[in-house]
C-alpha cells in the first residue's frame, strides 16, 4: 500500500517545527481518515483509519501509536521489538505490518496494520451476552487450527509471543481473507534462541488468566510452551465462553507469584506433583510458598466437566495436552496441528466464520467497538464509546448516531492554514524477506543480506502491483461516511 507517487514519502524529511498543538495534523496522517480508537494498552493506543488514496481507497488500517518510553532512553524498546519481529515474519495467520511512521518531534512510532474487524474477545463476548449459545464446532476448530498454524510458524522461527489472549487473536472481516485468524500484538514477543540474559529479566509476561504455571511459579527460563498453555486456555474459553482460570490478580507486588491464579488452576486440574512434573522442585515459588500453595488439596481433575467434553473425545485429549503441567511434556504447536481432533468432522477451514456446509447458521459478529471520542493525542472526551456498526447497535442507531455523525472526524478537524509538521516519514515495506537462512544458524540456505540489498527493487515492483489483498469493508460502514 502507500502512495506510489509520493517520492519523498520514504525520505528523511528535514523539519524543525515541533508539533506542539493537538490540532496540527501530521503530514503522513493526511493519507488516512481517522475513525476512532479501537484499543488501548500499556504500550499506547490503537486507532482505526481508512485510506484516502485512490489505489486502496476505503481500505481500513489499524494504527498503533506507542507511548514514549518513560526512562527517556531513546526509542521505546517495546516499539522496536515489535517492529523488528514483524519485519522478519510473514505468514497468513500473523498480522501484517504495512507501514511505519515516525514522528520525529517526540520520537514516537506509529505502526500501520491491515485492519481485522473481529477478535476472539468480542466473538466470545457476543456469544455469551447476546446469542446465548455456544460457538459452532466448525468455527471453534477453524479458529484454533489457524491460531496453532500461526504459532507453529512463530515457534519454528524461535519467536515466543508471550501475550496470547482472546483480544490479541484477530479475525479478518469481509474481503478475500474473511474469517482468517491473525495473531497480533508482538509488544512482548521475543526471540528465545540463545538469549544473553534469562528471559525472566524482561519482567512479568502474559495476562494472568492465560499465564502458564511455570511462569506463576517463578521460572527464570521458559520456552514456547508458555504460548501453548495460553492456547489451551483460549480453546477452553471458545468452548465454554468463560475464561477457564479466572484468578484475581495481586497487583501490589512486582513478584510474579499469583496465589489466587494458581489456586484456580489447581482447583480444576488438581495439584501438580513432582512425579508428573519433576523440575517443579526447582521453581522458586514452589519452594518458598509451599504452605500457601498446598493450603487446599485438590486432586481430582475436573477439567472435562468444566468444559463439557467427554474425557474420551479428541477435543478433550488435545485440550488436556495443552494444559499439561510440565512444560517439557506439553504438546507443541506442530504436534497439536497433527492431532486427531483436526482430522475428524467438521474439518477446519480457512474462513472460520462461515461454515462451508449449507444450512449452518451464520452468526453476524459485532465488529470491534470504535471510540470516536478519543483524538489522536489520546485525549478523551466524556461521551461513552459506541460500536461503529453492526447489528448489535442497530436498535439505537437513530438518535445517538445522528448526533454523533459529526464527531466521527473530530480528531481530524479541517486542516487549519498553519504549518503542518513534516517530521513524519513513512516506510512502505518491501516484500518481507523470508526468515529461512537467517533463522537457521547452522544452515546455509538463504542469503539474507543480499535479500536486503535487493529490497528496493522489490519495493518498486510491489508499488506497481496493488495486489489482490484489499479487504473491502462492510457496506454498512461505507454508508455511514
Amino acid at each position, binding site marked *: 500500500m502507500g502512495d506510489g507517487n509520493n517520492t519523498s514519502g520514504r525520505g*528523511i524529511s*528535514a523539519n524543525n517545527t515541533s508539533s506542539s498543538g493537538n490540532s496540527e495534523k501530521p503530514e503522513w496522517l493526511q493519507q488516512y481518515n481517522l475513525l476512532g480508537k479501537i484499543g488501548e494498552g500499556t504500550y499506547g493506543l490503537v486507532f482505526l483509519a481508512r485510506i484516502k488514496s485512490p489505489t486502496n481507497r476505503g481500505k481500513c488500517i489499524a494504527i498503533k501509536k506507542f507511548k514514549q518510553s518513560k526512562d527517556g*532512553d531513546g526509542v521505546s524498546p517495546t516499539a*522496536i521489538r515489535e517492529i523488528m*519481529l514483524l519485519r522478519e515474519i510473514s505468514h497468513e495467520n500473523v498480522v501484517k505490518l504495512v507501514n511505519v511512521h515516525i514522528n*520525529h518531534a517526540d520520537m514516537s512510532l506509529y505502526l500501520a496494520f491491515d485492519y481485522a474487524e473481529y477478535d476472539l474477545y468480542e466473538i466470545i463476548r457476543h456469544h455469551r451476552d447476546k446469542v446465548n449459545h455456544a460457538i459452532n464446532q466448525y468455527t471453534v476448530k477453524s479458529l484454533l487450527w489457524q491460531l496453532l498454524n500461526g504459532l507453529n510458524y512463530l515457534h519454528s522461527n524461535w519467536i515466543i509471543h508471550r501475550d496470547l489472549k482472546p483480544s490479541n487473536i484477530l479475525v479478518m472481516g469481509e474481503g478475500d481473507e474473511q474469517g482468517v485468524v491473525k495473531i497480533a500484538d508482538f509488544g512482548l514477543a521475543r526471540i528465545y534462541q540463545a538469549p544473553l540474559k534469562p528471559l525472566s529479566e524482561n519482567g512479568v509476561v502474559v495476562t494472568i488468566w492465560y499465564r502458564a504455571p511455570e511462569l506463576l511459579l517463578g521460572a527464570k527460563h521458559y520456552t514456547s510452551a508458555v504460548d501453548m498453555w495460553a492456547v489451551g486456555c483460549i480453546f477452553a474459553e471458545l468452548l465454554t465462553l468463560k475464561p477457564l482460570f479466572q484468578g484475581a490478580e495481586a497487583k501490589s507486588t512486582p513478584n510474579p507469584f499469583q496465589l489466587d491464579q494458581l489456586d484456580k488452576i489447581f482447583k480444576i486440574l488438581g495439584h501438580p506433583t513432582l512425579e508428573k512434573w519433576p523440575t517443579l522442585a526447582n521453581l522458586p515459588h514452589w519452594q518458598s510458598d509451599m504452605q500457601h500453595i498446598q493450603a487446599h488439596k485438590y486432586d481430582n481433575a475436573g477439567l472435562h466437566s468444566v468444559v463439557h467434553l467427554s474425557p474420551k473425545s479428541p477435543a478433550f485429549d488435545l485440550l488436556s495436552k495443552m494444559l499439561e503441567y510440565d512444560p517439557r511434556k506439553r504438546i507443541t504447536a506442530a504436534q497439536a496441528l497433527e492431532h486427531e481432533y483436526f482430522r475428524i468432522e467438521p474439518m477446519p477451514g480457512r474462513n472460520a466464520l462461515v461454515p462451508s456446509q449449507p444450512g449452518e447458521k451464520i452468526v453476524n459478529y459485532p465488529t470491534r467497538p470504535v471510540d470516536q471520542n478519543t483524538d489522536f493525542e489520546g485525549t478523551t472526551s466524556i461521551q461513552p464509546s459506541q460500536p461503529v456498526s453492526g447489528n448489535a447497535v442497530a436498535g439505537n442507531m437513530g438518535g445517538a448516531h445522528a448526533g454523533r455523525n459529526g464527531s466521527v472526524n473530530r480528531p481530524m478537524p479541517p486542516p487549519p492554514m498553519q504549518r503542518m509538521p513534516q517530521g513524519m516519514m513513512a*516506510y512502505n515495506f518491501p516484500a518481507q524477506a523470508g526468515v529461512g537462512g537467517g533463522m537457521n*544458524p547452522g544452515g546455509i540456505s538463504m542469503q539474507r*543480506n543480499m535479500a*536486503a540489498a535487493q529490497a528496493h527493487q522489490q519495493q518498486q515492483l510491489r508499488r506497481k502491483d496493488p495486489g489482490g489483498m484489499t479487504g473491502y469493508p462492510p457496506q454498512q460502514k461505507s454508508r455511514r461516511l
Partner: protein
Amino acid sequence: MGLVEKYKAANQRAIQTLEKYGTTQMEVDGDGSLSYPEPIVRDTADKHSRPKPLNIEEEQSMRVFYENKLREVCSAFYFPNKIQATALIYFKRFYLQWSVMEHHPKNIMLTCVYAACKIEENHVSAEELGKGISQDHQVILNYEMVVYQSLEFDLIVYAPYRSVVGFINDMEEFSGVNDGENQMFKDMQETARVEVDKIMLTDAPHLFPPGQLALAALRSANRMHGVLDFEQYLRSIVMRQNAEHNISQLTESLNAIDACVTKYKFPTEKDMKHINRKLKSCWGHSSHDDKKREKKRHKSHKSSNEVPNEPSVA
C-alpha cells in the same frame, strides 16, 4: 545493486552535495530529524581552496578504521561478541546507504553499539555508554532513529559465532568423536572464532549467510589444525541439505569469503591523517571557512527536495 554500486552511489551523492553546498555533513537535530546544508555562494577565486571529497577507497579506509574502533568500544564494556557482531553489521549496513562524508562514523559507530545492546536485550543506557568512553550521549540519542530508519528496521542479526559452535558439534559427530571433550576440536573452534572476527570486518557478511561465513572460518582453522578431511565433511553437509547447493557452489562461496579476508587492508596512520584532513574540509571544519559557514548554515526542508532523500535509490 551490488555493493560497489551502492558505495559509489553514496559517494557520488556526497560529492554532488559538496559541489552544491560546499559541505557534505548532514545535521541531526535534537528530535532526530536530519537537515541538509544550505547552499553557499562561492566566488571563483575561492576555487583552489575548495574541499576535496573522499574517493570510495578512502571511504572504505574510514569505515575500516571505525569498525575496529567499534570493536574496541565493545571490548572495553566486555560485551558478548553477539552484541559486537550486531553493532558491526548495523554500522556496515548504515554505510551502504550513506557516505562517511554525510554522517560522522564516530557518531554512527557509538549509536550502532547502543542500538545493538537494545536489540539484543542487554540494555545499556546511552548515558552509561557515553560516560564509559567520554562521549556526549545526546549524540547517540539523536542518531538512534536515523540508524533504525537507514537499516529499514531490519534489526535482527545472526552472527556466525553460534554457527561455528553448531558445526563443531556436528563435525565431532561426523568424525565419531562424541565426548565433546576433544582438545583438537576445542582448539579448532577457538581458531575459527578468531577467523570469524576477521571475516566480520570484511564485506563478506553483506554477501554470505552466517552458516557459510562459519564454514569458511572453520575451513581456515582446519588448515591450521588438520583435524578432519574438510572436503569430505562439506560433501556430507551438501548431501544432507537437500541439494540446495552443490559442492562446487559451496566451495566457490567459501573461496570468495577467504578472498575478502586476504584483500582486507587496515589503513596506515599516514593514510588516516590524510583522509581525516580531507574529511574535515568536507565538513567545513577548515579554519578559513568556519565562521562563514556557521552563519550560512541553517535547517531547511526546501533543500531536502533537491537532494535525494533516499540514498539507496540514488
